């Protein structure tokens, strides 16, 4: 099935405005978030940009200027995002979208600044997610920025999880940090001795407190836990030496040393005493799972911001490239359009832009999903508690029925009599969103940062001679390198792929995936120019391949799809990310089209904006389809052994003589014979007889269909390129260079 290219175009007038983005990313009715965006933007394009332009990235040390940046965060309310209003914040309810928007704005200028803004929240996250009410109230309030007239320095925190492993860096799965009982008097609270050396700890240069993951080194303490350490505790609180990072120098990173005596009340989430043993309520693993599940989304959005931030400087560079030269007189095409006279320059920028849109849509979709999941998770816990179901396996067992209902809901028609009932079931809603979040979070982190880093290279290459210089407009060269760190920290790509290989095969997720495929077909029937049909075909191919791989074996009879076979599972995870990003991008454009017409702030020029963004969707969907097609074909065929010119292989070949005879009775058969052996036994010069497609003919049909589905995508790219060459941009970048 091919998608129809829209005829008759309207060009986008200006770069997408705030009003457009608010609708696309679903915060048009949240003025708290709109203000946050403006506030964060003010700091990013003011304080932060001036620091970058002044060369503050050139030192690993934590300088007074960098400290001033933290104070600017305080004044602009950025450090208050994480807190509830009663704790000194200004945003009530879940904060995932808020944190993402702030990080996005800061990363538009500098990824290190964005990381610095997030690191404090990372330190508070264990306390927020699993801390006792007292711990949460105490540390959140003290970490909130002071208000006018409040003469108080806010507490700044660092999250100390990783530790040095001799010669090889870090291992987040192993803890060598130790905790043991220092003192325990009868009837009194125990005191703990905590011994930990951290590595690559963000915010450490100025941290007043640390949430540190440690293992028990004492039979009187069970398992592992996270402990809060304060600068004023008895013992050693050594901030350590700064890490010599290649990038992100506006965030502090170092290798601290702690040897401190703290009360047991500092165990995050509290503890109980059972038979004379301190039993922490949460192991360090349980805590970091809750923490990282959310924070990785923001990292993915940081790279997405870089890609979109590259568009304006590249357009300006391309258009002004020849101005001032002898042969480019004002009024000539060469003067007006510069490099944008050339299709390649435009097409490559369209690719960068399309990728940036898709990455941003995916990231914000994940952030919003966590915002809706957070209260649902609490509701789920309350419902199960009411039913007398505890955590762990009992909970999983109790949710199994909800999973079955959720899968049924996904396959159900809205007119089905049970549809309303299932849709209103909070446990069904929870398992659906939970399964989706388990995929979207690693997908955002993996694809946005990994593929995003590749596309940042492309953006830098479009800058020509400016590209790799320090004065490259928009700090693009720095952003390119930053993107690589973002792909690595908070769980490198292999960790995300590993997580995806587990979560993407969940029955609940796959049921949603099937529903999404059908949804894309429906969208395509009314909005063919979005590339939704192309995407649906690619989704269908991915799902077919996954099912095939789970059953199939390789040429040696070994099972293809299992945890250890990362050559199979990881590429499938990569392919899925392309699909998810493209889907989110299409949904965001549809939202804009639907709601934008009613919004006076976007109505004018909306058709042109929607047309352009739809064309970007089509371009991206085609890229996703190409990538999925390549990966799936490799996996489906790549594990079959290629036939050789041996006895077994030659069985399927005709001999020249045989073919001559057959030709007499079946004229034209020679045209269908792929491999013909000559009378002397010689064979065509190639690896072996052509491989058959036993069991894979269905795949070939899908592949054939997918190829034809690409129809129109290059026309969309041409249209998008035309818009890129005419869209109005500001006279100058709104931050120093």
């Amino acid at each position, binding site marked *: 099935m091919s998608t129809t290219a829209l005829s008759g175009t309207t060009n986008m*007038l*200006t770069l997408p*405005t*705030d*009003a457009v983005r608010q609708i696309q990313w679903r915060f048009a009715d949240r*003025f*708290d978030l*709109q*203000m*946050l*965006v*403006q*506030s964060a933007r*003010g700091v990013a394009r003011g304080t932060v940009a001036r620091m970058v332009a002044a060369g503050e990235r050139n030192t690993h040390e934590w300088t007074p200027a960098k400290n001033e940046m933290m104070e*600017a965060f305080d*004044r*602009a*309310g950025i450090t*208050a995002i994480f807190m509830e209003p009663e704790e000194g914040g*200004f945003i009530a309810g879940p904060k995932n979208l808020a944190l993402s928007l702030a990080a996005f704005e800061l990363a538009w200028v500098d990824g290190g600044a964005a990381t610095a803004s997030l690191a404090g929240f990372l330190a508070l996250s264990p306390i927020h997610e699993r801390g006792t009410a007292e711990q949460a109230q105490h540390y959140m309030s003290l970490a909130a920025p002071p*208000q*006018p007239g409040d003469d108080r320095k806010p507490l700044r925190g660092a999250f100390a999880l990783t530790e040095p492993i001799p010669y090889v860096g870090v291992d987040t799965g192993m803890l060598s940090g130790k905790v043991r009982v220092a003192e325990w008097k009868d009837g009194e609270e125990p005191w703990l001795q905590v011994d930990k050396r951290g590595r690559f700890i963000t915010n450490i240069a100025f941290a007043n407190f640390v949430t540190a993951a440690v293992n028990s080194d004492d039979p009187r303490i069970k398992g592992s836990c996270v402990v809060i350490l304060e600068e004023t505790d008895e013992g050693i609180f050594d901030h350590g030496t700064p890490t010599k990072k290649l990038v992100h120098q506006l965030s502090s990173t170092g290798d601290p040393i702690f040897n401190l005596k703290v009360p047991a009340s500092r165990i995050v989430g509290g503890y109980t005493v059972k038979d004379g043993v301190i039993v922490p309520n949460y192991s360090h693993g349980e805590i970091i799972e809750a923490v990282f599940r959310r924070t990785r989304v923001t990292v993915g959005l940081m790279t997405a911001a870089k890609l979109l931030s590259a568009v304006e400087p590249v357009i300006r560079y391309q258009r002004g490239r020849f101005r001032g030269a002898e042969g480019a007189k004002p009024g000539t095409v060469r003067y007006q359009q510069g490099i944008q006279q050339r299709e390649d320059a435009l097409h490559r920028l369209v690719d960068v832009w399309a990728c940036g849109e898709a990455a941003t849509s995916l990231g914000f979709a994940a952030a919003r999903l966590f915002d809706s999941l957070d209260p649902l998770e609490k509701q789920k816990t309350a419902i199960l508690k009411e039913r007398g179901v505890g955590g762990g396996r009992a909970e999983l067992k109790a949710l199994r029925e909800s999973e079955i209902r959720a899968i049924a809901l996904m396959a159900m028609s809205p007119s089905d009599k049970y549809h309303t009932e299932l849709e209103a079931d909070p446990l069904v809603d929870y398992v659906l969103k939970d399964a989706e979040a388990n995929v979207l979070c690693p997908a955002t982190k993996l694809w946005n940062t990994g593929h995003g880093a590749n596309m940042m290279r492309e953006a830098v290459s479009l800058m020509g001679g400016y590209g790799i210089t320090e004065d490259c407009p928009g700090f693009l060269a720095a952003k390119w390198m930053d993107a690589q760190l973002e792909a690595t920290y908070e769980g490198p790509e292999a960790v995300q792929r590993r997580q995806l290989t587990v979560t993407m095969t969940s029955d609940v997720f796959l049921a949603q995936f099937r529903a999404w495929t059908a949804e894309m077909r429906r969208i395509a029937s009314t909005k063919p120019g979005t590339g939704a049909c192309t995407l649906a075909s690619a989704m269908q191919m991915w799902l077919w391949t996954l099912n095939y791989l789970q059953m199939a074996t390789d040429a040696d009879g070994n099972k293809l799809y299992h945890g250890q076979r990362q050559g199979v599972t990881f590429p499938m995870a990569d392919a899925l990310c392309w699909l998810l990003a493209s889907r989110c991008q299409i949904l965001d454009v549809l939202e804009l089209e639907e709601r934008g017409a009613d*919004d*006076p*702030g976007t109505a*004018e*020029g909306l058709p042109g904006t929607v047309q352009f963004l739809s064309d970007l969707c089509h371009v991206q969907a085609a890229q996703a389809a190409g990538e999925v097609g390549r990966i799936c074909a490799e996996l489906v065929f790549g594990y079959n052994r290629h036939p050789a010119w041996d006895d077994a292989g030659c069985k399927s070949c005709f001999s020249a003589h045989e073919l001559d005879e057959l030709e007499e009775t079946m004229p034209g058969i020679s045209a269908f014979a792929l491999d013909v052996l000559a009378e002397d036994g010689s064979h065509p010069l190639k690896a072996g007889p052509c491989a058959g497609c036993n069991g894979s003919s269905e795949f070939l049909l899908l592949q054939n269909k997918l190829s034809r589905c690409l129809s129109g995508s290059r026309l969309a790219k041409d249209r998008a390129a035309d818009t890129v060459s005419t869209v*109005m*941009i*500001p*006279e*100058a970048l*709104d931050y120093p260079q």
Partner: protein
Amino acid sequence: MANALQIVVCAGIVPDPLQTLEPITGASGPGLKNEMVLPAVLDPWAASALYEAANLAAKNPGSKVWLVSLGPKAKLQQVMMTVAQKVSFELVPVDGPIGGFTDAHATAAVLAETIAALPGLDHTRLLLFGGWESATRGAGVTLQLIGERLGITDQFQGVDQIDLRDDGSFEVLERVEGGKHQASVCVGAPAVLGWATGNLPEPRNNPQIGMANMRTIMPALQKARPATLAANGLRYTSVSLPKQQRDTRVVKDKTPDEIASELVEWIGAK
């Protein structure tokens, strides 16, 4: 509470000065290319007036600041996401056309009518603030006309400073030629002050202030009164941007004094 003031700041919104501003003539007269889709900011001169008003109000307990703004309410809302975080005020939006080519008399009539209808406004304590100039095609008379319509005859333009005295009188510094100020003493409110840049820096964004302001701003925007501006026979024969003049020379190895002397000589010659 002796000097509790009621300050009304008139402020329009204008396209962000970083944008490409290209005059075009449409069906309804001249305008700027893509003006409705360009990001907008509070008119910089009027913004100075707002910050000065907030500063004055903060020094005089019991004072209140209104921000009266005529413009498309959707654009006003976007601009408020930044402005509302800077100082405390109550927004009085009037949903009307944007642009620098409206008739100043019609604009003044709508604004004066809106101000006169403000609930609880005490005319004897009123200070009417606004910008002395505008980042759009400033007619330079709108504020004066509003003052006249409200019956306020003490008017000051190009104001950089106001010092309020205990007896309610105040001293005003107005810009005059030669980089000097004219100092005037006014017996007290009501008065019109058209601000130049003032002396205050732009306040930093503070979301807490923004959240407090938003409690009244969002309902006000929803209820914004629509207004149409009469053309009053105003007609433009042509509009164009001032010509940019660029005469670049690359000069090396000159001392700052030599550069300054040459600049002074060049300015003098002009």
